[in-house]
Structure formats: C-alpha cells, structure tokens
C-alpha cells in the first residue's frame, strides 16, 4: 500500500495539471494563428461563387460524351410588312419529321418581338437561332430572357422562342431567313478524351506503384536483417580478425576493379559460341564451389579445413563474377531478340537488367573482390592471431588499427569531399572512434568493467569527452567551418604525392587522424578484444534508414527527374527508395518480434548464420512480410497519384494539368478514378491480408 498523498502534494499535482493545460492552450492558440485560420476570406461572394463552381464541376466529371449532328429548320421572314406585299408563308410541316419552324407574325419591323416555334427537334437538347439576312450575313440571335446563345428544347422536341427582329442595314423590305440549328445525338455515349487519358495514366500509376513495390521487396528484406536488433546484437567478432578484414577491403576492391573486371569484360565481349563455352566453364566452377563447401570430415582439422575454406572462397569469387556476367550476356541477348508484343516486353525487361549489370560490372567486381579477399584474409589469420603473446597482441592490434583507421576515415573523407554537409561524416566517425579511447583507458586502469551507476556515468562522460575532442580536432584540421558556411569543397589542386600515389590533402589529413585514433584503439584493446560488429551495423543501418525515410518521396522524385527525365521512371525510383527505407523498418520490427527459440535451437545444431536465418527466421516472418508488402503497394498507389505533380509520372500529371487549366470537370474524372482505384485496392489488400495472415 502506498501511503496516502499529503494534501500539499495533491494541491501541487493539481496546480501542475492546470499549468500544463494552460500551456497546451497557448501552444494551440499560437498554432491557430500560424496556420492563418480566419473566416473573412470565405465570406467574399466571388470566392464563394468560384468555390461553388469548382466543387460543382469536380462533382460533374467530364466522363462521357456523345457525338452530335446538327439539323437545321428554317423559315422565311419579311422585314417590314408593306401594304400590298405578300408576307412569305410559313414553311409547311414536312412529311419526314425533320425539324421545321413556324414564325408569327411572318413579317414585322426590326425591333419588334416575334415568336418562333420549333417542331421535330431532339428533346432536351441544345439548339441555337441564326438570322440569315437577305445578303447572306449570319448572326446568332439570343432569345429573350437568355444570356447564352444556346437554349434547350422541351420534352417533346419543341421550343417557343421570342426574339427581336434585328436591325440590319439594307434588309428592310427583303426576305430574310430564320434558321435553327438543333443538336441531334448520334450513336451511344462514349468516353471523353480526358477519360481516355485518365485511364491510361491510372494504369501507369498502378504499375508505377507495383514496380516500385516489387523492386523494393528484396533490398528491404535483406536490409531488414541488419536493422533487426535481436539478430545483430549477438554478432561479435574478435578485433584482430575485423581489422585484418578492413585492411584487406581496399586491396580486394583494387583486385576486383582491376583484375576480376577483366574476366567480366572478357565474357561480356564473347560471341554466342564463346558464351556457351563460358557457360559450361561457369557451371563447372559453380559446381566445384558448391560441392567443396560441404564439410565432410567429422573432426575439425584446422589446416585442411582452412585451406578448403580459402579454396572455396576463391572459387566462389570466380563463380560470382562469371555467373553475373553470363547472366548479363544472356539478358542482353534476350533483349535483342524481340521488339514487339508480349515477347517484346520481356525482351525489354531482361535487356535493361543486362545493360544495368554491364554498366555496373566494375563496382560489382570490386565488391566481390573486396569481400572475397577480406574473407580469405580473415580465415588465414585466425590461427596466427590466436597464437600471439599478449605484448604482440597489442602491437599487432595497434598496427592493424592504424591501417584500418586510415582506411575508414579515408573512405569517409572521400564521401565527405562531395558536399559540405556530407563532410560531417568524417568528424562524426572520428568522434565515435575517439570516444572509445578514454573509457577503455579507464577500464584498463581500474582493472574491471564498470557496473556501478557512478562508474557507468563516468564511463559515458569520458565517452562524450573523447567524442567531442576527436570531433573538434577533425573538424578543425579539415577546415570544415569554411565548407559549411561558404558551401565550398576542398580544393582538388591541393594534393600530396607519396611515391607514385597522388592523394588529396583532405583525404590524407583524415587518414592521419584515422591512423592516430585507430592505432591508439588497436594498441589498447589488442587483437583479442571483442568488437560488437552487429551492434555497429545495426546502428548504422537504422541511421541510414531513418534519414532516408525523413526525405519526402516527392522531393526524391523531383531530384530523380533531373537524372532520368520527367516521367514515371522518376516516380518509380523515388517510390522504390522510400519503400525500401520504410519497409526495411517494418520488416525489421517483425523480425524483432519473432520467437527467438528456434534461432537458439538451430545455432546449437551447428548451422551457420545464413542457415539459421533461412530456417528459423524466414518461416516466421513470411506472413507479416506478405501483409506489409500488400499494404505498401496500397500506400504506393495512393502516393503515386500525386507524384505526377512533381514530374514523377502517373495520374497526378493529368490532375495537375486539368487544375491548372481550371478544367475542374476534367480534374473530376481524375479524382473519381483515384477514388475508385484506391478503394478497390484498399478492399483487396485488406481481404488478402486477412486471408493470408
């Protein structure tokens, strides 16, 4: 039982509530003014009229139209009745039910109202009166009480119209003709051009969303693994191993982009027979890679095990390059096969993918080479690193740390050189590296890990001190203040030549800081230290995802349309990027909520990490993944309806066009189409999700 609160504390709590309500009210009131809510403008009559018109027209979509033919009924008329002269007789009712007019009287002075009766016109349709003077000049006559040229016939196709005999010079005493053009619909109602355009753009919109959703499935599923805390937290690696791998990454990249890529180009340049031959070799290599990856022996033999692992990785690297390029060659070949019809679409699809691989072959080879070499290096050094005596552990750790630090900060500086705000990457990463040093030193000096509250707070203070110090030093060394204020980039001319390598001073400075920080870190931890690789990957992935999601897809579309031109492709790219970022987060949350028991169980059977994910994680997350994918498609269609406003293609383009032209009836068609498609998709995705999950 809690003790009863004292009256003072009750009063204090109430006071707090009153104050917070008052503050809330002020904040709300301020928001009210900021958003310029006022009711004066809506009271202006012109605005009300325009508003009413716009609403009325949007709600009368210009959906259907009919074709018309114009039939004419006419009768003669004498201007100025003269004694002794016969007024022309009213045209008699024709026998074939074509339209005719009866005018009373049949002669009159100009300025006199006369009555015209029409018969046999189309019921409830438009008609207009034309006065044809004796010399053939035509003028449209508005009927009395009407402000428009057209008038509407009544239910049985007749009309009674009063007009005033016009004053036309030289017509007095002559016979003029009164004509009535009546609109007669022909054929069934059909869609307007606007409707056709809207339908076409709606299809484009749906496919835009579909393609963006489909492309983003695989990347977001893969990224979501890195963004799932429960999977990443246990991923740790000994610092020595990690540093060896990081140090080898650029070497591997160099090998990939210079040597492996030759193999790629060779295959890409092959004739068809050559391709077949290469395909054969590739399948052999793949088969070799696949079969040797089996661990046959029951006991683990460090040497032969490692050798096989190295051999395996080499084969895998070659197999990857060969398979990727063969896929590209095959796709390019398919791309040239057909141009029309359904095969044409398929050709185009595969051809584009082939082209993409061909364009990216160098970086693909670079990545394969980098990870291949890092993996080989890691395997080969694992025993050696284990055998180091404690002093050597720290010495080797320091050397490897210096190299890795230089590489990491050099890479950051390379990115940071491209734009002023990207420049922040280098000091931030340097800060994070530097932040580790003081707590490490403290732990070392006190001889144990800090578990008390005081110890941990001191730890985090030391962390921040290190971070700020390293950040500041890097910030000042790279002269970033200038870049941020002036928006200037580091001068390309300021370079240093070491041996045969020419390197930008900016990168060199960053690398020197990396050598100091990495070296110090490696030296104090030693190669046996445990590096929380998973945690670092998790934090990095999360940060990138959150940043990407924060950028509105409309803005992304705007930027992409600079690269790929205005049209649906820009929209696809924007929606894909946004879908990847937001779905990776949703997926990762699903992964985080799975039952971790099976993961533990599969790890205990000796399954590797990828197998554990495939067999323990994937079966559990497939239903929510499908559900979220449907949901995402739904959202993508909604969002794609407006992406056309910024040049992203789809129905937004029509909508914007019609609104800008004040064609609200046309806009109404687009609004109607969006409403129908969105509600159908809403219903469909809800039904499918319900059934599947």
């Amino acid at each position: 039982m809690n003790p009863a609160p004292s009256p003072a504390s009750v009063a204090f709590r109430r006071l707090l509530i009153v104050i917070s309500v008052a503050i809330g009210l002020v904040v709300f009131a301020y928001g009210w003014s900021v958003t310029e809510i006022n009711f004066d403008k809506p009271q202006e009559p012109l605005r009300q009229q325009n508003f009413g018109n716009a609403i009325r027209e949007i709600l009368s979509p210009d959906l259907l139209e009919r074709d018309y033919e114009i039939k004419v009924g006419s009768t003669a008329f004498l201007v100025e009745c003269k004694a002794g002269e016969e007024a022309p007789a009213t045209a008699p009712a024709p026998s074939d039910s074509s339209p005719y007019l009866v005018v009373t009287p049949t002669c009159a002075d100009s300025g006199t109202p006369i009555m015209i009766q029409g018969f046999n016109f189309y019921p409830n349709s438009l008609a207009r009166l034309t006065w044809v003077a004796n010399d053939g000049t035509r003028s449209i006559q508005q009927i009395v009480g009407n402000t428009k040229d057209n008038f509407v016939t009544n239910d049985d196709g007749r009309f009674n119209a009063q007009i005033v005999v016009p004053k036309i010079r030289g017509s007095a005493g002559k016979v003029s003709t009164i004509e009535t053009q009546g609109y007669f619909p022909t054929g069934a109602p059909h869609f307007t051009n606007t409707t056709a355009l809207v339908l076409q753009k709606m299809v484009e919109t749906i496919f835009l969303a579909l393609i963006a959703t489909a492309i983003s499935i695989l990347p977001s599923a893969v990224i979501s693994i890195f963004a799932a805390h429960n999977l990443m937290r246990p991923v740790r690696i000994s610092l020595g191993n990690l540093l060896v791998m990081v140090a080898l990454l650029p070497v591997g990249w160099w090998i990939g982009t210079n040597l492996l890529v030759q193999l790629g180009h060779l295959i890409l340049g092959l004739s068809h027979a050559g391709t077949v031959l290469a395909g054969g070799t590739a399948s052999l290599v793949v088969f070799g890679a696949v079969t040797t990856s089996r661990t046959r022996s029951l006991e683990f033999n460090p040497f032969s095990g490692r050798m096989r692992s190295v051999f395996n990785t080499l084969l895998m690297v070659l197999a990857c390059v060969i398979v990727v390029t063969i896929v590209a060659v095959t796709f390019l070949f398919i791309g040239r096969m057909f141009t029309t019809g359904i095969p044409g679409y398929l050709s185009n699809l595969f051809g584009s993918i082939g082209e993409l691989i061909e364009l990216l072959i160098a970086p693909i080879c670079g990545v394969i080479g980098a990870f291949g070499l890092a993996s080989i290096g890691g395997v080969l050094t694992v025993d050696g690193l284990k055998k180091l005596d404690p002093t050597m552990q720290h010495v080797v750790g320091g050397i490897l740390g210096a190299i890795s630090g230089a590489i990491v900060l050099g890479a950051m500086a390379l990115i940071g050189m491209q734009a002023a705000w990207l420049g922040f990457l280098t000091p931030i990463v340097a800060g994070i590296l530097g932040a580790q040093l003081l707590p490490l030193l403290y732990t070392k000096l006190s001889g144990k890990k800090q578990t008390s509250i005081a110890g941990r707070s001191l730890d985090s203070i030391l962390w921040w001190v290190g971070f700020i110090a390293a950040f500041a030093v890097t910030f000042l060394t790279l002269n970033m203040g200038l870049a941020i204020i002036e928006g200037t980039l580091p001068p390309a001319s300021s370079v240093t030549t070491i041996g045969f390598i020419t390197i930008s001073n900016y990168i060199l400075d960053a690398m020197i800081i990396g050598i100091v920080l990495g070296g110090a870190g490696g030296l104090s931890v030693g190669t046996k230290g445990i590096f929380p690789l998973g945690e670092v990957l998790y934090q990095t992935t999360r940060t990138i995802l959150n940043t990407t999601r924060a950028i509105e897809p409309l803005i992304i579309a705007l930027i992409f349309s600079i690269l790929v031109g205005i049209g649906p492709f820009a929209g696809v790219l924007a929606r894909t990027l946004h879908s990847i970022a937001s779905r990776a987060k949703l997926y990762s949350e699903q992964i985080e909520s799975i039952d971790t028991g099976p993961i533990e169980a599969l790890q205990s059977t000796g399954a590797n990490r990828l197998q554990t994910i495939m067999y323990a994680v994937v079966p559990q997350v497939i239903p929510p993944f499908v559900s979220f994918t449907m949901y995402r498609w739904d959202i993508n269609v909604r969002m794609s309806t407006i992406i056309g406003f910024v040049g992203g293609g789809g129905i937004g383009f029509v909508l914007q066009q019609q609104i800008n032209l004040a064609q609200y009836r046309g806009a109404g068609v687009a609004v109607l189409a969006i409403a129908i498609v969105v509600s159908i998709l809403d219903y469909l995705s809800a039904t499918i999700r319900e059934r599947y999950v």
Partner: protein
Amino acid sequence: MLVIENLTKVYENGFIALKGINLEIPDGQFVAIIGLSGSGKSTLLRCINRLIEPTSGRIIWNGLDITAAPDDELRVIRRRIGMIFQQFNLVKRASVMSNVLSGRLGYVNPVYSLLNYFPRQDREKAIMALKRVGIEDKAQNRAGMLSGGQQQRVGIARALMQDPEMMLADEPVASLDPATSHSVMKYLQLLNKEDGISVLCSLHFLSLARTYADRVIALKDGKLEFDGSPKDIDEDRFRQIYGEDAVQVEIH
C-alpha cells in the same frame, strides 16, 4: 569425456551466474542438473555449446577446447552436441519434417540447404528419427499443431539428426504434464542406454532425477553444491540445495 575447468559466467548487468564450476563427465553418463531457478542450470548447459559465451574457464570435450574454438570449428563441434529446450524451440509454422531436417544443417552443403534441398539419405534419416520417437505419422503436420509432448519429441528427433555424442536438455519436461514428462524422459533414457549418448539434463523435480539419472549435480547460486549419486540425496542434502523451507514434491 567432458571436462569443465573453473567455468565462470558474469552477465553484462553484473550478475554472476556461475562461480568457478569444475566437473568431469565421462561418456555415456546420464547426468541430472538440479537447483533452484536462477541457480545457473541453464547458463551451465548453454556455456557447454557456447550459446552463452563463458566469461572465463575452459570446457574441453574429447580433447577439443570448446571455449577457444573459432566460429567455424565451433560449428563442427556443435554438430555433435544435441540440445532440447523447455519451450521446444520449434518453428511452429513449419512442418514437423522441416523442423527435424533443420537438425542436419550443420552437415549438409550450405548452398543446397539455402535452396531447401536435403539429400535423400537425410530425408530417410529424418523419417527414422521420427519413428524412434513414435510420431512418424505427423511428419507433414505443422509443428505448432502438435501437443506439447509431441513437440518435445520433434525436438528430440531434430537433435537425433545431428548424430549427437552428447545431449544437453534444458528443463525438457518443465512445460509438460507428469505423464508426458515421463514419456519424454524415457526417450532420453533410451538414447542414453541404446546409443550411449551422454545426457546432461536440467530438471526441476528431484524425483525425476532419481528415476532416470546416474548422477546428480546440484547448483546453488552458481556454485556446485552437490555431485554424486541420486541415492545420496537425503533430506538434509535436499534442504541444502533447495533451502530450509523446501518440501519434496513427487512426480509420478
């Protein structure tokens, strides 16, 4: 022979789960580990196959230093150590067959396994394993649809796929009713007697330990409190292990 030397585990929050455990377990023994909740039973079992990373000490199994093994070597060692769990730890949405086959992942070709391909002899082996635990007719059922006892037997079948030389069982019957508990324990006993697999099994009930185990190890606050034959646990020993207020509960 499993040798545990001076095994200590300190969790990141500072909790000391194991304090210098020393043990020698010859091959083929059925060892029950008893003790109160939080006494370190689960931690001890998980340290043996390094599901939990020990803080210090060594674990040597048939001459292999488990605690020092790098990842790839550790996986090869883990293949020969089966493990079953209190919560069965099956993928409930997957079929029984697929759950059992996943016990073979350490042996099969990793590339093939990612394509969900298992060699025929492994599929036959899985049927045999299910036959041994008496549920071969459930092979195509969803694992989650089975009763608790059946699920635990799927867990045993999965461990059997590893051709284990040692079996770790973390409270295998704590979620089951008494009758089912006995049937699951009987299967473990069978593996121990027929195949000569060493069994390390943590248990809540002393009566189960008395029925099935050759040897009982008792943990208290992360320390070894008792190590000997189940017959030697008399009322005083029992109080020592479980505390002064404890009363023995029989499970039949």
